[in-house]
C-alpha cells in the first residue's frame, strides 16, 4: 500500500506537469471494482484533446497489474466480443469516452485484489510522444436503477 501511495504522489506530480502542456486532459478516470477473485478489471475515463491535431492513445501502464491493454467491446452475431485494439483516437478539439461496453483500458493480472477507494496509478502514452500519468480511484459499479419499462440503450 505504501508503494501505491508513493506512486500516487508521483503520479499527481507528473499529471500536474503534463497538464501544463494543455492539449490532452483526462476526465473522471476510475477503476471498476470487481470481486476479489477477479484477475482483471477495466479503467474508464474521458480523454479530451484541446489541440489542433488528432491524437491516438497507443498504450497504458500500471503497477496494479501485470499488463495494461487497450480494449473495446463489439456486438456481433448476438454476442459481446471483447477485443484488443492498437490505439484509441481522439479527434482535434474533441473527446473520446472510455466506458463500459466500449473502449477501456484493461488491467490484466491484478497484482493484488482492489478495494473500493484504492488509488490505481496509470500512465497513458500517446502517439505524439506525450504521456499522462494519473490516479484512478476504484469505484463500485454504478448501475442506474432506471424506470422499469425503459428499454436499454447500452
Amino acid at each position, binding site marked *: 500500500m505504501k508503494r501505491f501511495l508513493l506512486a500516487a504522489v508521483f503520479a499527481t506530480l507528473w499529471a500536474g506537469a503534463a497538464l501544463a502542456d494543455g492539449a490532452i486532459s483526462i476526465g473522471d478516470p476510475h477503476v*471498476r471494482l*470487481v*470481486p*476479489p*477473485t*477477479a*484477475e*482483471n*478489471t*477495466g479503467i474508464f475515463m474521458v480523454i479530451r484533446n484541446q489541440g489542433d491535431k488528432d491524437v491516438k492513445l497507443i498504450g497504458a501502464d500500471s503497477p496494479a497489474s*501485470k*499488463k495494461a*491493454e487497450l*480494449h473495446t*467491446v463489439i456486438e*456481433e*452475431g*448476438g*454476442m*459481446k*466480443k*471483447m*477485443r*484488443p485494439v492498437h490505439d484509441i483516437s481522439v479527434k482535434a478539439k474533441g473527446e473520446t469516452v472510455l466506458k*463500459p*461496453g466500449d473502449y*477501456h483500458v*484493461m488491467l*490484466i*493480472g491484478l497484482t493484488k485484489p482492489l478495494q473500493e477507494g484504492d488509488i490505481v496509478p496509470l500512465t497513458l502514452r500517446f502517439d505524439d510522444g506525450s504521456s499522462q500519468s494519473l490516479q484512478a480511484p476504484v469505484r463500485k*459499479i454504478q*448501475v*442506474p*436503477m*432506471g*424506470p*422499469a*419499462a*425503459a428499454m*436499454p*440503450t*447500452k
Partner: protein
Amino acid sequence: MHTDQRARTPFRLSSLLLVSVLSIASIGLVAAHDGTHGLAHETGVAKGGDFTLDSTAGPVALKQFRGKVVVLYFGYTFCPDACPTTLSALGGAMRSLTPADATQIQPLFITLDPARDDVKRMAEYSRFFYPTMLGLRGSEERLAAVAKQYGVLFAKQKVDSAANYVVDHSSFLYVVGTDGKLSRSVPYGAPPLEIAAALRAALPHSAK
C-alpha cells in the same frame, strides 16, 4: 457488384457463382472453427429445461429450486465488461425486492470458461454481486449442452492479448418459473427495476 456488360457473360456469372459457393463454404468453416454454440437462440427454439452442474457445495440441480423462481446468467469471471455490468444490475434488482420476494428467487451464475473458472472462483465471484447467488461450473460438454438448452451463444476466441483468449457470449438473463420452465429472457442493459419487474412477474404470490 459488377454493373458493366461483361459481368453478364456466362463466364463471369459462373465465376461469380463459384466465388459465392466458396464464400459460403468458408463462412461454414469459420463458424466451425469458432466453435460457436447454441444457435438455437437465433432460430428461436430455446426451451430451457433441467440441468445439474457443480458448485462448492456439490452438485446443484435446477430441479431442487422448484417452487422458486430461478434467474440464470452465463458468462465468465475473466470478463471485465458485460458480466460485472449484468450481475451488478441483477444484484440491484434483487436488493430492490421485498425481502419476502427476494427469498423466493435463486440467482445462478454459470461459467462459459471452465478452463479458468473453478467452483471456488465462481462461488466467490457470484457472492460478491448478491449473497445468495450461486456460481456453477461443469465440463465443457455439459456447459455447452446447458447453454444450448437456453439458447446462449458463445465462442472461445484467441486474441493477441495477455488475456490469451476471451469468450464471446450473448448476454441475456433467463427467468425460470416456479414450475422449472423458461418463462422469459431479459436483454443486456436492462436496468435493475426492469429486471426486478421480470422476476416479480414470475412469482405467483408477489404483489405485482
